[in-house]
């Protein structure tokens, strides 16, 4: 079901991506999913939460969950408090319950032709090392890889970021 959605999304002509950097890699999410970029660094940790959950932040009275994708993907770990000092890309309520992801740096908005996004599920052998690494970490979050002029853009699907995580809680039920 979700695969169908993804493929459909990939087939549309151009897509604007909100791009950001994490651990020196360039990532992008569909700009239509993004509500805002927030610099709130006052994160309240949630003890006993999965390791890739930073905690809660308050954005104008609404509590948002903050996810640390570095942990999700298993990138080189910086000190936890350092990770917390970044910016938060906050997603729209249509994506999931209120949440955002912690990023190192927010970059430009990039228009990408859909056809240039390589679905990593299709040709795995051709994809870069980075993508392989990601595949190992979490299935579903990375929709595909898009080569830009200088580097590769990893296209993420915001709807799957917490979807994957909730598997844990549904298993325990």
């Amino acid at each position, binding site marked *: 079901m979700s695969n169908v959605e993804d493929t459909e999304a990939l087939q549309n002509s151009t897509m604007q991506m909100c791009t950001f950097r994490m651990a020196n890699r360039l990532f992008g999410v569909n700009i239509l999913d993004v509500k805002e970029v927030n610099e709130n660094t006052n994160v309240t940790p949630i003890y006993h939460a999965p390791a890739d959950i930073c905690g809660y932040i308050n954005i*104008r*009275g609404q509590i948002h969950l903050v996810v640390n994708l570095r942990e999700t993907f298993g990138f080189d770990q910086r000190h936890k408090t350092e990770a917390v000092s970044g910016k938060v890309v906050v997603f729209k309520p249509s994506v999931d319950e209120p*949440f955002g992801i912690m990023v190192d740096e927010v970059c430009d908005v990039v228009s990408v032709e859909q056809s240039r996004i390589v679905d990593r599920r299709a040709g795995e052998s051709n994809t870069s090392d980075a993508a392989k690494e990601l595949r190992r970490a979490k299935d579903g979050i990375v929709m595909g890889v898009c080569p830009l002029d200088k580097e590769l853009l990893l296209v993420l699907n915001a709807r799957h970021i917490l979807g994957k995580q909730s598997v844990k809680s549904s298993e325990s039920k």
Partner: protein
Amino acid sequence: METDNDILAEYVEESREHLTHVEQIFESIQKTGEVEPGSINDLFRAIHTIKGSAGFLGMTSIGMLTHAMESLLDSLREGRLSMTPAISDILMEGTDMLGDMFDDVNKSNSMDVSGLVATLKELNSTVDAPAQVAPAPQATPEPAPQAAPAPQVAPAPQVAAAEPERSVADVLNQFPELAQFASPEQIAQVKAKPQAPAPAPAPKPAAVAASPKAPSKAPSPELPTSSQDKHEEFLRIKVDLLDRLMMLAGELVLVRNQQLMHVDQADSTFRSITQSLDSVTTELQETIMRTRMQPIGTVFSRFSRMVRDLSRKLSKKIELVTEGDEVELDKNILEAIGDPLTHLIRNACDHGIETPEERLAAGKSDTGKVVLSAYHESGQIHVDIKDDGKGMNRDVIHRKILEKKLKTEDELSRMSDQDIINLVCLPGFSTAEKVTDVSGRGVGMDVVKTGVEKFGGSVSLSSIEGEGSTIKLRLPLTLAIIPSLIVQSGEERFAIPQVNLEELVCLYDKDAFTRVECAGAREVFRLRDTLLPMVRLREALARERMFDEEALSEVTDQNSEARKEMGEKYKEAEESGHSIHYSLNFAVLRSGNLRFGLIIDRIHGSEEIVVKPMHRAVKGIPLYSGATVLGDGKVAMILDATGLARHYNVRDVGGGSKDSKKQKATAEDGTELRSLLLFSNGGSEQFGVSMQDVKRVEAIETSAIERVGSQEYITLDGVSTRVVRLEDGLRVQSSSQPENMFFLIPQNARKPYGLLVEKLIDSGHYEVKLNKESYQAEGVEGTALIKKRMTVLVNLEQLMHLVDGMWYGGNT
């Protein structure tokens, strides 16, 4: 057959309102036994309106049923019939049926109404003019094509049937649209026998709707229009819109808080603007909160029906009395208590109230009474369900508990009678000898208890054999905002809901490292004769796995090491003439029957917090019940006492049984265990107040008290608080006014005030045998012997009323 969904939804909504109105009328008929002349008209109008639109929307079954009801009501209205129990029963049955049909309106046409319709007709046929009996509607139950009523000629006779005193000409004048549908012959036909109120052969209600505006918006002029006159100013608003409004108000409060923090005190213009922003914001938030409050009567009203049905089913005579219908509760709670209350009332009727014969034999009136009352107390809503039935038999419960192996003989022997009665809340318990379809499957009380506790309420039972039982529910006013204590552990602040909090204990200097002891692998504290297991919040947060014996002893060892070190340092410092100050804070929390001390680093104070549910990705963590935004904008987690106790593997360390033994020994001679705060006011008298009436105690300096006229005020947290002295209201010795005094702030006051007392003596659970004769005065509950001294128990609420009725805004 497509119907516009919006119109349908509106119709269902409207019809439900009419049905509610109908039910109310029946209820009052039932209650008073008298039929007010206007009420039949009201009933008629309501049913008629439902019928009208039903036809238009193609609801044939609804149309058929309402038509039959309408005819019967018409006979009643005309005085051809008089209201008998049989008639009111069948009409109520019809109303119920309609309610069911509106629950799933799309399937309503497949519901079988023929039986009911036939009975209605039959009753109507007892009218003295048998010619008016309508032919059975099943004869031609051909569904009316809605939205295309043109070819149907039925309209005219139908309307005529409904309002037989009007001539067809009138009808046609009123609904000119109808005229074009009716063939001349038909009109002539009807004109020929204008007195015949016989309904059309086939009740095709679609017909009436030929003029869609007519049935609902244009009541026939002959009918008294009383109900149309009282236009109540209500507006239907979507709940999610209200929720959004509430959220926005919450955000506004935070913005206001930030503004207050940064306001330049020197700039008077800016300051006054900020002040008005402040007050408007507060008022706005309160008003929005109020929109969610609804009277509990809306829930109560459905029970009178239920009790009536039950009493018939069980062949008992039961009367339901409701009190405090106007008490308001948050919508969410109101929805949540429906089921538990249904259970409890069913229980009271089935198990509690005896059969009339049994009652007469026991010397009671043959009609059993179930009293359902709601009232405010101590900032909570209390709902009592009281019956005057046979009560609970302690021995039967005792036996059943043993039979079902829910507790051992030994455990039971240590319990008081009331404790044993409360065991009926255990899962799997039932005393009913046989399972009836009303109740007795042994899940009832357990479901009630868990249901009520889920939203922060509590249940307690008491019962006297032969005289009846009382079940008390205590409910929070609202789920959204709860009073809580803000504490700190490490860098983070946490909120502890006030309902879980029993008391706060601070140990200083030497006590901080000597009073906490080890019992096996656990740390315990001896709190007034009971052993309190201790939980270290810091450790609980640091360890993700549930605590086992190993982890517990590790923590205990570490801390006893640390304590030893502290002791040595303290000694050293003492010897060298320095002094080190240590302190240890813990909060005594209660979850169910477990009590434990939660060691925290700092206590910040109490705050009213807005509860937000946990994000779905972190919902499974047992430690938290939610999150909240604190005044400074930072998010804090709300601790869940039950989850915390479970995570830390807290077990009852056996301190509690002593208490209950005491309770057992004293329960018989009229004493009760009460939690009291004891104080003195300078003189030799000892006073006590109920701990649950006190919100907090503040140590103050008397020099800070200001006088305005004859009244005294003190500023606490920026609020001018009225100072009430004990001697203002009671004839007691006045205080010598030392420099340091204490200020008791009551729990449920809308205006800020507090009671000034000189010295706190102690607090805790005391056996109280209330003596009401020895010292009688307003503001005093009575006296009791506590700690071998005569103690005057002060009723804070009454005292405040006494001192200044205008000031006190508590219960109404």
